[in-house]
């Protein structure tokens, strides 16, 4: 076993996800504390050319598993390849981004390797060789500090919680001979909105709640567009059928940590607050000055969102030029 950190890189539409760079940055600190190096693994089809980008974030070595059989990102196939890489690289810690793919892969890998897994963590550190992670539980109402034992240990890192910082690494590329075998699961179709930023990775989120009163989110969408952000929804808005479930922020939806969270007509039920209270700056726009969200917001405007949003959008466009 080494004291190295192996970061599992993830690509979306041929580019690395931001969380991959965040994980590499967290991995560098962890490697410093453990006295090891940061390495990375890239899996997919046609990924070899991009692998060198990971060196800019400190990867000393980059394992590249480039094979047509890995084009689909099916968890089963990735688990097999990753298990092979881990067997050869013998890392102390495997870091993944807590994305849809990363979480599924981490769980399968933990069972395959009989390894500890801390999922969707907001911090990870090592002291005296002991890896400790901080992870939200109960939808963010509780923060748990957990210790992980055995080798390797697996940690998935919540997007938007680590600062991605560059630091040149040697970036030696090592090709992995891929032996995937038969894979039972097949991806038969995919529909991705190329321009859409996922809520979990967005720097800015504008959420519309029950106060929207109808499925017309154009006022929220216009503000989100002006801010370069994503549109979210409260549970009641999703229950009303105004927005898809994938837009839901909160304990039964997504937990988010953007730089700026603008809650429009959202009362602030405990499940919602738990899901967004780690946002850096919170703005609330609500008719009701007593709404729970108003007491959590850094900036609040008491008013009708349909009057406020168009004016605010125009003001923001002025600033952004």
């Amino acid at each position, binding site marked *: 076993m080494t004291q190295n950190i192996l970061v599992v890189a993830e690509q979306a539409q041929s580019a690395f996800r931001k969380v991959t760079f965040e994980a590499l940055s967290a991995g560098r600190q962890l490697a410093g504390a453990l006295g090891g190096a940061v390495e990375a693994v890239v899996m997919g089809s046609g990924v070899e050319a991009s692998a060198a980008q990971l060196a800019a974030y400190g990867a000393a070595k980059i394992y590249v598993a480039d094979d047509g059989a890995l084009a689909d990102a099916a968890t089963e196939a990735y688990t097999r390849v990753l298990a092979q890489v881990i067997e050869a690289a013998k890392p102390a810690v495997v870091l993944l981004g807590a994305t849809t793919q990363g*979480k599924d892969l981490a769980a399968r890998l933990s069972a395959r390797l009989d390894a500890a897994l801390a999922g969707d963590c907001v911090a990870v550190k090592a002291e005296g060789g002991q890896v400790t992670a901080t992870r*939200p539980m*109960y939808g963010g109402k*509780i923060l748990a*500090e957990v210790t992980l*034992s055995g080798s390797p240990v697996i940690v998935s890192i919540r997007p938007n919680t680590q600062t991605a910082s560059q630091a040149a690494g040697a970036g030696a590329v090592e090709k992995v001979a891929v032996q995937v075998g038969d894979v039972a699961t097949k991806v038969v179709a995919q529909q991705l909105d190329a321009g859409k930023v996922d809520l979990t990775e967005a720097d800015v989120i504008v959420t519309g709640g029950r106060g929207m009163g109808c499925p017309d989110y154009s006022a929220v969408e216009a503000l989100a567009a002006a801010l370069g952000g994503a549109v979210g929804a409260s549970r009641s808005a999703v229950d009303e059928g105004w927005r898809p479930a994938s837009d839901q922020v909160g304990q039964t939806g997504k937990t988010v940590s953007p730089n700026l969270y603008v809650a429009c007509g959202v009362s602030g039920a405990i499940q919602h607050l738990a899901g967004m209270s780690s946002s850096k700056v919170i703005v609330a726009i609500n008719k009701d000055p007593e709404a729970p969200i108003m007491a959590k917001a*850094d*900036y609040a405007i008491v008013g009708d969102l349909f009057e406020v949003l168009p004016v605010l959008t125009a003001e923001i466009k002025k600033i952004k030029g």
Partner: protein
Amino acid sequence: MEIVVLLKQVPATESMIAVAGDGVSIKSDGLKYVINPYDELAVEEALVIREAQGGTVTIVSVGPAKAAEAIRTGLAMGADKGVLIDPGDLALDGLNTAKLLAAALKAMPHDLIVAGHRAVDDDNFQVATAVAELLGIPNISMVVKQTIAGGKIRCVCTVEGGTREVEAPLPALIAAQRGLNNPRYASLPGIMKAKKKPLETKKVADLGLNAADLQPKVRIKALKTPAERKGGRVIAGDSVQAKAAALAKALHEEAKVI
């Protein structure tokens, strides 16, 4: 079709959660416990599949004796039978929970396993997928739609920025995401019938495992409540225009987020 639902009893999402005196567990007094909301979707989907294909829906849960309440609720919704795996004093991590479930599943027929994609208490996103790996069967996560035909299940799943359609041969495990269905309520006759449906309790030893097999690799060192957010300021102004302009200025110059 033999369908097994993996179910966990959790505190209702509207609960306030407080850390207990030991610093590593939560105060459970006065908490209302319910079926994990994603597992409720799993129960509903299992019932829908049984209605279409015939077969049996069995609910399996790992938890204390109290968790039988959640299984009974699932039986009242329409499931046929339940199995409660009571780990006794063992402190379980996610992987060990998956090992208990997998051991129970190996001893029962299963064409399809339906679970929630996460439990809203631990939020570790591990158990369902780990069970599939331990059983050596395919898993499909974040499922919002499924169809079964010709021994295969085809699912629409949410991924960042869109959806994917994934197909796997049965037996397989699917994990429910919000949007899959709207779970039915247990009817009064359903509740009455549920009282007579079989609910078996198994101990760890009954599954051929012992405490030495189930040493947790993840241990809680400390729980804490996140720092309470203090409210900031209400933007004052004579008009909507004035308030909006003041907010935009504050976000730009003070908070520096735009």
